[in-house]
């Protein structure tokens, strides 16, 4: 009987983390900003059909980077979780915090138990209402969870984009300004002109009742950015 080579748990986890990080940084970035109108989510995404940003529940949106099949499955799992909870209890009882915890648990378990860790990083945005402030959670491939405010960035060269946005985004920024800033950030990252076509954007709008999530159509993104120049 052959004995497997001994690998220290530390080394094993480190290798897994490196593997996951490499996968995540290979892709493009997503930025989430708090704006006057609500919460803006912007992805650098050349595809119109394969979304990186989507609706989970009335006031909760999801953004994921990394391996498409993996974050797509996480997105679906989140919708199932939220719809079940909302149906069995009430729509108000679905919160971003409990969803973020569920994701964290799921990713944490997967990281420590599965051979291949998930190559994903996700953001969960929960639009506040009345006195309750917005909540933005960033959840990493190993299940670690970060409570962010104003700006949150995942994927690609996220540190660079994050620094760029943190320097410029102030409380009270409008949707239009926010979209312009993120576009400039994407341009900085790619060192060349960034096409409007490559922007996938959505907003959780404070003004709406019920389902607050709205996708910005390419024409609308174009219009918002055109007058910005």
């Amino acid at each position: 009987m052959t004995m497997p080579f001994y690998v220290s748990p530390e080394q094993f986890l480190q290798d897994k983390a490196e593997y996951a990080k490499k996968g995540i940084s290979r892709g493009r970035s997503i930025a989430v900003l708090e704006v006057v109108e609500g919460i803006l989510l912007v992805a650098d995404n050349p595809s119109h059909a394969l979304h990186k940003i989507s609706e989970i529940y009335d006031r909760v949106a999801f953004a994921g980077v990394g391996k498409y099949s993996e974050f797509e499955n996480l997105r679906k799992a989140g919708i199932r979780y939220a719809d079940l909870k909302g149906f069995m209890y009430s729509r108000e009882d679905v919160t971003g915090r409990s969803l973020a915890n569920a994701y964290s648990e799921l990713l944490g378990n997967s990281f420590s138990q599965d051979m291949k860790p998930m190559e994903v990083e996700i953001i969960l945005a929960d639009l506040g209402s009345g006195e309750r402030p917005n909540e933005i959670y960033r959840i990493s491939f190993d299940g670690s969870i970060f409570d962010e405010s104003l700006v949150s960035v995942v994927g690609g060269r996220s540190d660079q984009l994050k620094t760029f946005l943190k320097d410029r985004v102030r409380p009270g920024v409008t949707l239009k300004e926010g979209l312009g800033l993120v576009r400039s950030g994407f341009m900085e990252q790619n060192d060349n002109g960034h096409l409007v076509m490559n922007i996938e954007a959505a907003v959780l709008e404070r003004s709406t009742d019920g389902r607050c999530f709205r996708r910005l159509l390419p024409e609308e993104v174009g219009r918002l950015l055109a007058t910005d120049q």
Partner: protein
Amino acid sequence: MIPVNDGSLWWGGSSFVELLNMVRSGGGSAPAAGLSGGMDSSRMYPAGSPGSVPVWHGTTVLAMTFRSGVIMAADRQASEGYQVADRAIQKIFPVDRVSAVAIAGAAGPAIEMSRLFRVEIEHYEKLEGVALSLLGKANKLGQMVREHLPLALQGLVVVPLYAGFDDRTGQGRIFKYDAAGGRYEEDEYHANGSGGLFARNVLKMLYHPGMEEAEGILISLRALYEAADDDLGTGGPDFVRGIFPLVYVIDAEGVREIPAEEVARTLKGIGESLRRRVPS
């Protein structure tokens, strides 16, 4: 907990009903049929004379097409036998941006069904990234009524009326159902519930295609008025408590409720026009 199937997140299906049945039956891989969530409903409810359990019933609901969409209206009364159980229940539920469902029959299961239907439609839309067609939604509702059949046979009959604006044809469409889940499309109007026959008769006399919205609302309210006049179970306009029928208009702009003041004004007008015929 995030729902998993045999320990795996990676399982397909865009149906909330199936998901719910699976979760209720203990996470097995084969979804059990039925609204009752995998439990055999004949075991839950011993066979016996229907109506031996006191159950609330919703009464009259109607839908009619007009020039640019469809109008839905319903009285507010729930009855338990010969008594009023509730004077102000809601019997029309918006499902999504373009459609609504109105319910008649056993109130409890009917409200549960419309809640479930709404989540089902929304769940599909979120998972697939695209909304179902209006016909797709109507068929789905038919399946839900069909799954409810065992309970219907026990006396808890639920008969929905589904109406919406079809983006693809640019028109309002109405679907009626029978207790066995049969789905039938109606071009002009339909009314359900204990006062449904009286309401249908009024609509039969007054309906004409291509009506404007205001006239549509007027004759819908007239139909409900006559239903309440002749049917014990149907509630009339209550000027003392300020409770009036619910009216929804669905067109290309979406689903909107007509404000109670406007409904009250229209009903007052109907009352005035009828009073003149009564010799004083």
